[in-house]
């Protein structure tokens, strides 16, 4: 197992918070999956499990003033940006106390109090929004940075190239974070993406990086540097993060051997899991102990269980809310 390559974050509390945030995402997803499998969750959802180091490595380099745009596979971004379990589970179950009062659900969860402008159920749909947030920051003289999360599948959308062109022309403080998990829904990325993904950004003169998305410290180290440079007016940047989704495209995508093998899934889980890797590194470095890790895991598991129970018991919005929030006052 390769140790994390870099150690810019020297504060042990920061390391432990990153670990905890990754465990929180995995735990959230395990619970969300169970809610789906036990038919307690309406609709469907897309699991972020396996990609935790991407969201946490990036969001730990951001402040609450920095914005992100998220995707249909967005629970990880939401947790990593600081969201609360109770309001998230309430939203997934369509309850009044959810982040969006039950109107958005899994695919539209947003938490503007932490700068999360929302998940988006149109693949690539938020690329304009993220770039516009960066345009606003530059125009109004704000120093916040916007990170646009999207998957490899979204690189096929034309919108990306329109907005990267403008972001590069106008030096906007935006970071395009391409989570390349190898699959565009049910299709191998190599079947939908010609050439190199980073070269596409480079064609606009955008500095592009490729990083191991299973190495939270490498992701965090790179993002910290790029965020600092964005704040100095050196943006935009592009990062391709090599990662893997453990589940199918969505929770109902169970039989997927026609597009990827169980051996491949096993290899990623057993040999490249971002949480297992980071945990080993933390213990090896003497930053924490196995016992402390287990205690932290148990605490997160309890938090999640409590939040699920809370959300299950929580009230649905009153039906009178159905035509509320169509228009703002």
């Amino acid at each position, binding site marked *: 197992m390769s140790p994390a390559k870099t150690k810019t974050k020297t504060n042990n509390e920061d390391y432990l918070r990153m670990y905890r945030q990754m465990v929180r995402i995995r735990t959230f997803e395990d619970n969300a999956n169970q809610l789906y499998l036990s038919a307690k969750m309406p609709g469907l959802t897309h699991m972020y499990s396996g990609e935790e180091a991407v969201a946490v490595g990036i969001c730990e380099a951001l402040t609450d003033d920095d914005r992100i745009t998220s995707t249909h596979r967005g629970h990880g971004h939401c947790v990593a940006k600081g969201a609360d379990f109770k309001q998230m589970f309430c939203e997934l179950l369509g309850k009044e106390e959810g982040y*969006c009062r039950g*109107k958005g659900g899994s695919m539209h969860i947003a938490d503007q109090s932490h700068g999360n402008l929302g998940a*988006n159920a*149109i693949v690539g749909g938020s690329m*304009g*929004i993220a770039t516009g947030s960066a*345009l606003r920051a530059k*125009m109004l003289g704000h120093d916040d940075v916007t990170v646009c999360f999207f998957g490899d599948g979204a690189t096929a959308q034309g919108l990306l190239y329109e907005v990267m062109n403008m972001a590069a022309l106008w030096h906007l403080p935006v970071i395009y974070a391409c989570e390349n998990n190898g699959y565009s829904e049910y299709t191998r990325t190599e079947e939908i993406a010609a050439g190199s993904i980073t070269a596409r950004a480079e064609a606009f003169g955008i500095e592009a990086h490729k990083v191991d998305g299973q190495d939270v410290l490498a992701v965090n180290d790179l993002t910290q540097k790029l965020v600092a440079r964005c704040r100095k007016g050196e943006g935009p940047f592009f990062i391709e993060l090599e990662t893997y989704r453990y589940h199918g495209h969505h929770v109902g995508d169970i039989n997927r051997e026609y597009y990827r093998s169980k051996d491949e899934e096993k290899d990623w889980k057993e040999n490249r899991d971002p949480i297992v890797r980071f945990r080993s590194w933390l213990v090896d470095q003497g930053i924490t102990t196995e016992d402390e890790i287990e205690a932290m895991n148990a605490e997160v598991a309890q938090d999640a269980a409590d939040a699920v129970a809370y959300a299950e018991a929580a009230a649905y919005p009153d039906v009178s809310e159905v035509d509320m929030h169509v228009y703002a006052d």
Partner: protein
Amino acid sequence: MREITLSQAVNEALAEEMRRDPTTFVIGEDVAEAGTPFKVLSGLVEEFGTERVIDTPIAEPGFMGMAVGAAMTGARPIVDLMFGDFIFLIMDQLCNQAAKTHYMSGGKLNVPLVLRTNLGATRRSAAQHSQSLQALVAHIPGLKVAMPSSAYEAKGLMKTAIRDNNPVVIFEDKLMYQDKAPVPEEEYLIPFGVANVKREGTDITLIATSSMVQVAEKAAEILAGEGISAEVIDPRTIVPLDEKTLLDSVRKTSRAIVIDEGHQSYGVTAEIASRLNEKAFYHLDAPVLRMGAMDVPVPFSPALEDVTVPTPDTVAANARKLCAGEMIHAA
């Protein structure tokens, strides 16, 4: 009162609001030095600079999406879409993103943006530069739709749109940019959802939008010469729609024609006629008639194009028949 063109009225509205609110900015193709092909924005870049009058590449979904993101995070973008026909290019950003964000976020995120664009045929611009697509966006909850019919409305509605906390689409009639109308020097706003009774009458109500208001007024003149008293009403915004003023008029006159330059089928005229039928049925002496553009792509040849849209003569002819009790079968 002084008279200015519709183009000048829009320009004044933008300049006044941009002076008033530093978070406003204009974004679109050739909006700065060029001032748009219709020269509506001439002079703005000189006053506000290229930071707030932003020329974009030819990338409508891109700059529309960016306007949504800027609006969600504290700015008030005014998007310039060179031709209304290009709405098809930005549908995802307008209808899936801008229109739904406030609702999907449970009211926590706002999208205060204005999309300025235009409508109108008979400019010999053929099928992709002549459409009147207001029905498409009026169909989507979360969007407001304003349709100014003169320089006066263009200014007052634009100022209201810029201060509104929702995405507002404004369709200007591209043939009317050089038309002059009285516009006060002092500041005024026109509230949304308040129709304007342009001409009072007792025999028939002509409800007309944007470019069709002039047509209806001319038809009313023709009818007056024949002893038919037509009331002309301009809803000014179709979302929200001032139903009460329309219903009050129809209950008085017992007859109505709804005129809008969009295609007739599944259009604005159908929606308004339907509401009148549902809510004023027992006051009606005749079916409410729809008059929209013909259900054909807009043709290039003047000989063909001119017959695709309602004219004062066709409106007057239909009004005459309705008032005579003749049954009219809509096209």
